[in-house]
């Protein structure tokens, strides 16, 4: 599928869609940032958004957990985003609850200035979980899921700020996992990391897709090619092409996609 026209829904293929986007228009004030996006995102797959700076990929990602609500001039002009068949922009949707189901990892790791343990336990404590044994269990589960347990199990009470950049980013992923989200949004999660730390996060993404749906924005086309099952190419706020990552990188159908991934523009 290589279109964003309303009559065609771009590419979930044979998978099971968990996010459905229909006729979605988004603007910052008078400036339209996304134009008539239609696509399905499959559960337990990694979907990568690629495109040049300013193409709208991060804006679009941030629509999935309504992070754009925090920007005063941001507004949805039309369309819907449904997650598990619920329109997340319905008036009765609890945004806090939504963000528990749709976790987010940012470009720059942002651990709380607390211990490694407390970073993971934070979300659960807010939810009212106080039992130490339960918290211990979740902290270990999340650190193991984030491939961090062996590295930090003997220093859980130390400050998270003393960890390396790559460890901090994996800690943020572990923290997002603590509240058992269905979906993880990642906005350039490796852009501040060295190649080894990047490889570890990519390994982690590959492991996590067994249990989670992951949507990742990346400037690195090599990273999109390595980690994702499907790739969506955005340009000037439009979804230009969306399909299986193999097809997008080996045989793109749209000349603009071909030009971008070949480095001829962007």
């Amino acid at each position, binding site marked *: 599928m290589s279109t964003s026209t309303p009559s065609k829904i771009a590419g979930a293929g044979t998978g099971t869609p968990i996010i459905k986007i229909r006729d979605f228009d988004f603007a910052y004030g008078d400036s339209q940032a996304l134009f008539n996006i239609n696509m399905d995102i499959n559960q337990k797959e990694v979907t990568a958004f690629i495109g040049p700076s300013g193409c709208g990929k991060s804006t679009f990602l941030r629509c999935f957990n309504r992070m754009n609500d925090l920007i005063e001039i941001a507004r949805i002009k039309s369309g819907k985003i449904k997650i598990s068949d619920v329109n997340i922009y319905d008036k009765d949707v609890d945004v806090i609850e939504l963000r528990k189901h749709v976790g987010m990892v940012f470009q720059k790791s942002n651990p709380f200035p607390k211990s490694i343990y407390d970073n993971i336990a934070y979300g659960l404590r807010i939810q009212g979980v106080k039992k130490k044994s339960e918290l211990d269990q979740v902290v270990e589960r999340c650190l193991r899921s984030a491939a961090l347990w062996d590295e930090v199990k003997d220093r859980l009470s130390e400050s998270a700020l003393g960890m390396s950049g790559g460890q901090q980013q994996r800690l943020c992923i572990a923290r997002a996992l603590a509240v058992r989200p269905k979906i993880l949004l990642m906005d350039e999660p490796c852009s501040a990391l060295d190649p080894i730390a990047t*490889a*570890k996060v*990519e*390994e982690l993404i590959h492991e996590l897709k067994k249990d989670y749906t992951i949507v990742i924005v990346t400037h690195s086309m*090599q990273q999109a*090619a*390595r980690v994702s099952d499907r790739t969506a190419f955005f340009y000037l706020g439009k979804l230009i092409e969306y399909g299986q990552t*193999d097809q997008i*990188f*080996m045989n793109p159908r749209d000349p603009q996609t071909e030009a971008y991934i070949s480095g001829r523009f962007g």
Partner: protein
Amino acid sequence: MKRFYQHELEDLRTKLILIGEKANEAARIAVDGFLENDLGKIDQALALDDAIDALEVEIDQASVRYITLRSPVSSDVRFILVAIKASHDLERAGDEAHSIALRAKEILTSDGRSGNTVSIEQMSLLGCSMMTDAISALVEEDVELAKAVILRDKEVNRLHHQNFKTLTIGISDDGTETQTRFQKVFISKSIERIADHAKNLAEEVIYLLEGAK
């Protein structure tokens, strides 16, 4: 650190070994069928060609996919290049085996027996052992074994020239006999080409392991 897509290179290596074994098997069975006047073996050799062709396509596709999606460097990128070139050599060796089988079938069908087989058996043993060793050199990453394969190519060439002389001396235009002699020259030439492909594979293994030709 082993990357999560590392198994794709292992799969590619397995396919490369498989195509090599099939090409070698096709050549061996085709020549055996000829020497033993066994049309059943020749048909078995002919039947292997489609599988060899299909494997070459699979190796090409997997290689292009790996280059596109995995951004290989260093020994990984050399391995991919070797896979593409070696699969082409092995597919061509399979084609030569197919050609041997077709010519052998024609001889056995028209003459009923293979007759004077000059040094085709010796050449075949040598050529197939070169191929076996070239594949082993790839599997075991053995540079010395690969170098030894290259040295044996000259002997196969010598045997082919000898066969050529023997078979073309005294050729006259007396029909079947002449045609059979030419078929045997072509069989000899095909074995010589199989040995060339084994030599190419050995050179590719050296490039893979040493990073230089």
